[in-house]
């Protein structure tokens, strides 16, 4: 188990380095002078000099990369061209907001999707199975920004129950909760559909195996058989949950735009339109790191559940 964990951790390092190289290269791939790419046009000469020194633009690329990596490792991601704020602050705040949304929508989707998927598998071919499949198809096929707009029209415009924009800065926890409700629901739809389908097919695979017949043949009560089936489908369920959680973090650009939710997607959107390369670099680097660590966590969790993976 621990050697396996160590090996997986070592494998994560080259992935992270690769991501950092791509992010570093963005400065040089942007058209024009690299200084112009990372500095606001009206920067003072002193600021330009300081940045030049920090990036070491006169030195070879490899050295520049290492210097930059050293600063990144210390949490210095440079300054935003648009706001002059330290990028790390913007990224931190937006990451927190995105995480909240990713977590709440994931929890909603995980809970309902797993329950629906399992129920559908155990009631295969009955009406409950068909209803679950219908929900899954709707969840996957409705574009979530479109669902977001519909939610706004119904719950904000017509019924006036819930707010549609922003995160209620300084409005207290209750206001924050009210603001996150609609984007949470909009973001939960796709993973809900995917999870329902994957959990159903994973549980059906297990149900069709001979050992389930053997468990029933030895007189085990239905709820005990259910536990066996869940435990056997757990690796597949964890994989889809982890992947979906990852998508939730990265895939919310459109929904955050629809609801003006100040998360990483919103920040990324803003940075692209304002050609704010340092912010772009910061967001991408932090998200990439996050994905790699998340994958690692899911892998390790699987080995805890399925003894066959690590022992072989």
């Amino acid at each position, binding site marked *: 188990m621990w050697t396996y964990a160590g090996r997986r951790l070592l494998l994560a390092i080259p992935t992270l380095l690769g991501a950092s190289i791509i992010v570093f290269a963005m400065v040089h791939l942007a058209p024009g002078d690299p200084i112009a790419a990372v500095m606001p046009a009206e920067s003072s000469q002193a600021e330009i000099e300081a940045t030049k020194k920090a990036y070491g633009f006169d030195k070879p690329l490899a050295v520049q990369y290492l210097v930059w990596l050293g600063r990144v490792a210390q949490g210095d991601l440079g300054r935003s061209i648009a706001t002059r704020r330290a990028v790390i602050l913007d990224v931190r705040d937006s990451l927190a907001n995105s995480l909240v949304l990713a977590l709440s929508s994931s929890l909603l989707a995980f809970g309902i999707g797993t329950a629906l998927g399992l129920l559908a598998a155990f009631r295969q071919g009955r009406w409950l199975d068909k209803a679950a499949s219908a929900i899954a198809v709707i969840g996957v096929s409705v574009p979530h920004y479109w669902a977001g707009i519909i939610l706004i029209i119904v719950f904000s415009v017509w019924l006036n129950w819930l707010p549609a924009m922003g995160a209620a800065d300084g409005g207290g926890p209750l206001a924050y909760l009210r603001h996150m409700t609609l984007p949470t629901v909009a973001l939960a739809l796709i993973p809900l559909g995917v999870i329902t389908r994957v959990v159903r097919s994973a549980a059906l695979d297990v149900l069709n195996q001979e050992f389930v*017949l053997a468990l029933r*043949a030895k007189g085990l009560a239905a709820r005990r058989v259910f536990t066996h089936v869940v435990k056997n489908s757990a690796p597949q369920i964890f994989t889809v949950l982890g992947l979906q959680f990852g998508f939730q973090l990265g895939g919310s650009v459109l929904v955050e735009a629809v609801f003006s939710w100040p998360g990483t997607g919103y920040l990324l959107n803003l940075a692209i339109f304002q050609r704010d390369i340092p912010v772009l670099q910061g967001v991408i680097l932090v998200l990439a790191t996050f994905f790699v660590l998340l994958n690692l966590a899911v892998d390790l969790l699987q080995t805890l559940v399925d*003894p066959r993976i690590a022992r072989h």
Partner: protein
Amino acid sequence: MALLSVRELSVEFATRDGVVSAVNGVSFSLEAGQVLALLGESGSGKSVTLRAILGLHPAVRTRVGGEVLVKGQDVNRLDEPSRARLRGRIVSTVFQEPMTALDPVYTIGEQIAETLRQHRGHDHAAARRRARELLDLVQVPSPDRCLASYPHEISGGMRQRAMIAIALACEPELLLADEPTTALDVTVQAQILWLLRDLQKRLGLAVIFVTHDLGVAAEIADEAAVMYAGRIVEQAPIRELFRRPAHPYTEGLMHATVRRGQKGRPLVPIPGAPPNLAVLPPGCAFAPRCPIARDPCRITLPSFHPVSDGHVARCHFVTPGGSS
């Protein structure tokens, strides 16, 4: 009262290709401590019969008819919880392939213990003690290690012993063994067979032993029933069956398998293939492959004809006292 009495059992599956009649009017009974061998080529309905005895066929797309009386209770009329109380407690099962019949993510110890918790309400310590005892009973050399192992960590022979331990955990009276040695290495096959025979004698178990290997049947059974296309076509005490096979299909089976004392004789497989169970012919289902079939065979279904005391065969051309 017989321990098990099966009357006119039939099992039909609705499939895309029509209604498959996997079991057709099967009747037999079994006394306590008696061993019945269920013989027949693969696909003849042996496993489906065993599953019907436990009431394990799903309700969807399946029709089960007839009676299965276990100690007088009709399994087909019991509700699911009452059936679950019979399974593993009165009637237990050993499957053909222990690797797929054991749950891969539970240890052997957990799989024995949960059976005891289900039927006996044992606590953790008691279940563990009894599990160890059971592994001793089935002659597992290092029981503690086996209890802590997952199925993939032990050999095929050990897995089958563990499967038998689970089946015997709650001291059942009837053991359904569905080709329990077929999936094992030849040397291990013999060991498991001896173990089963030994346990059967010591515990006074009634056993239905499913096999397509006549040699194995001869080793363990008192009585034999031969199945073809979902019907029992011949039934007799095992020695009588070997001495005087009365049904052409049974004779064919004997020519097609190796038996002790018959080395050097060429094996003659039965020509042709088993019939499509979705469109069974009106007459004898064996007629297309039978060397002595005549016109009446294709028109009317033969009923059981007595051959000798306790020996019957479903063939038009059986005469009492000898084969056709």
